[in-house]
């Protein structure tokens, strides 16, 4: 009796497996013949590897939320080319070796139709190499360092307004438009030993130095530095008009407090990344007045699709999107624009057509209209935010600004 039951069980299992295999076969056929009528019912499979654990887990999850919102909005509106989109997300544990094997298996084994990029320069560079080998279009949300675009790959596109050295371009223009005797005459730069943080600060430093601003302090510190007293002492002693921090988060907090302790009052202060963190004002004891920071995204910016994005994201995740979420959503928008225009989403020739289309296209996104140079660098600049009366206001460029830039900066 029991033997019989067992045999029957195995039989049922075998039939089920056969059926599964058959389904898989059908699916592959459908994807292969994506141009045929039968294929239009299949979802578009999008392969992504993200750092959901490890060093970059926090921003990695932000990017995941942005991708989810994008898929949600697209599917609500009837999908891409009439097909629903499905995200196939793997966790690479912030490991550059894992990200390579992830994209290889997504492309070669899972035969995904499209790929989206991971988070952070360290992971985007190896991932872009894999995508390039397979000839896949590679739009990425989060690698702003200049090195990313110097590998000669023609398939990579950065879905944000500007690479790191261009973040402060609007501020440079603003400073150079001031009468010469009112401009900052001297500047101090302190930057973390990190390609992104240095990229932002050095973009501003080099452009201002060329215009005649004297660089009086120029320090680099390791990412683990928590004691900023010695750097602050040098800046306070030189007393420059402008202080620029190539910062992430904790370094900006510690540096600003150390500068305050030494009674240094700059006429202008600009720090990357940290000031847009919601915890920043409290961490520096409210001494945020007049601090400038470049950002690629604002909930308030009135680009055509932004309101829809903020609403959908808030509904899905319970809070308005930040920059990481916005760049992920932008990645989706860029790829979707190419897919809709070219009319295909599959591996093979289609990918090259998508790449060729984006090369000359301008795409409307939640961070504004984007276009790219031959290496995939976006050709814009970041908005400049400033804390004015305790609120974050957009001060540059003037056509999207919500307030006027305050200079000289009030005392902190």
């Amino acid at each position: 009796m029991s033997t019989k039951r067992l045999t029957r069980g195995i039989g049922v299992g075998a039939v089920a497996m056969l059926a599964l295999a058959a389904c898989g076969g059908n699916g592959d056929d459908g994807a292969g013949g994506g141009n045929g009528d039968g294929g239009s019912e299949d979802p578009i499979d999008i392969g992504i590897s993200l750092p959901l654990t490890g060093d970059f887990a926090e921003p990695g999850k932000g990017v995941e939320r942005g991708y989810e919102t994008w898929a949600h909005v697209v599917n609500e509106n009837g999908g891409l080319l009439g097909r629903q989109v499905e995200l196939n997300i793997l966790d690479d544990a912030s490991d550059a070796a894992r990200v390579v094997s992830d994209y290889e298996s997504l492309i070669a084994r899972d035969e995904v139709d499209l790929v989206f990029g991971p988070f952070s320069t360290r992971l985007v560079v190896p991932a872009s190499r894999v995508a390039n080998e397979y000839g896949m279009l590679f739009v990425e949300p989060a690698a702003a360092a200049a090195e990313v675009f110097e590998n000669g790959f023609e398939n990579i596109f950065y879905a944000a307004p500007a690479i790191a050295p261009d973040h402060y371009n609007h501020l440079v223009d603003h400073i150079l438009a001031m009468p010469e005797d009112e401009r900052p005459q001297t500047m101090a730069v302190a930057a973390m030993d990190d390609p992104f943080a240095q990229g932002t600060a050095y973009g501003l430093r080099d452009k201002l130095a060329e215009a005649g601003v004297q660089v009086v302090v120029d320090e680099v510190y390791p990412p683990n530095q928590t004691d900023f007293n010695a750097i602050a002492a040098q800046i306070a002693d030189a007393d420059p008009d402008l202080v620029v921090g190539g910062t992430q988060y904790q370094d900006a907090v510690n540096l600003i407090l150390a500068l305050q302790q030494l009674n240094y009052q700059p006429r202008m202060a600009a720090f990357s990344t940290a000031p847009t963190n919601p915890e920043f004002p409290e961490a520096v004891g409210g001494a945020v007045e007049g601090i400038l920071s470049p950002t690629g995204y604002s909930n308030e910016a009135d680009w055509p699709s932004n309101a829809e994005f903020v609403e959908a994201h808030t509904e899905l995740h319970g809070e308005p999107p930040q920059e990481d979420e916005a760049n992920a959503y932008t990645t989706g928008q860029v790829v979707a624009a190419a897919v809709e225009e070219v009319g295909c989403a599959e591996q093979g020739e289609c990918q090259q057509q998508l790449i060729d289309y984006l090369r000359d296209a301008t795409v409307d996104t939640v961070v504004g209209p984007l276009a790219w140079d031959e290496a995939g660098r976006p050709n814009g600049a970041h908005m400049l935010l400033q804390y004015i009366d305790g609120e974050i206001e957009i001060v540059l460029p003037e056509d999207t600004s919500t307030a006027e830039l305050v200079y000289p900066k009030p005392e902190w």
Partner: protein
Amino acid sequence: MITGTLLFQSLILGVLLGGLYALLAAGLTLYFGIMRVVMLAHAAFIILAAYIAWRFSTATGLDPMISLVFTIPLFFGIGFAIQRWLISRLKPATMTMMSVLITFAIALIIEGLLGQVFTGTQRRINLPYGASSVDFFGAAIPVVQIISFVLAGLSLIALYLVLKKTRFGRALRATIQHREAAQLVGIDTNRTAGLGFGLGLATAAVGGTALSLQATIFPSLHWHWIGPLMAIIVVGGLGSVPGAAIAALLLGIIRVMLELWWTPTWAQTIFYLALFLTLMVRPQGFFGGRLAQRF
């Protein structure tokens, strides 16, 4: 470029930083003296104390230093427990090596728990006097640094008095100098070692609270501290509390002064340069250090 004011300012900041180093290193050298234990979790406990101070301050709105009222006894108890129920069970022959493994595990557990409970976000206590400073002959001395220096000074003086003037201190020093002989004259060396360990960990409570006043904290911060602290106690002579304090003060000053000429990245290497130099020239350490000769 480097003015007199800047030199003086840096010197002051170096002395203040060195004071904090001295307190943080004192406990570490004490464990080694008592038990030949390399206590890798010392810095993790420092960060734990800093987190408790931060949490206490954000939850109650009171000054983080008030948390010392309960963290000092708590850490003393934990130190006693660790010594009595973990470290003392190790075989004397493999004590030094095994203690590295055990305390490494404790450090990982503390780091993991802090990450689990408080996430990896960097925290800094928002103090009303956080940005204030006092003018001292043209140099600005941050109030938080004065407080942490005073805390360090008071703790080190207290530690010194306990070791030199009390009966327990004499028993502890006897245990450090010669365990068997101490037992022969009637000292309960096991209990004394446990209390000594508690004393060492209590300094971590004070050090962590002092640290929380002046820098951001995050769960993995202890890895950045344990290396320099280990170097300091070797330079000062393993097991010697005054040696550790002097070495800490000197290296703290040198580090801050070096940042004037070197980059901050290179200035951090002073601890390891001093470590190499000590091992080459005077392996038993520059101060005190009668103990290390026996290894």
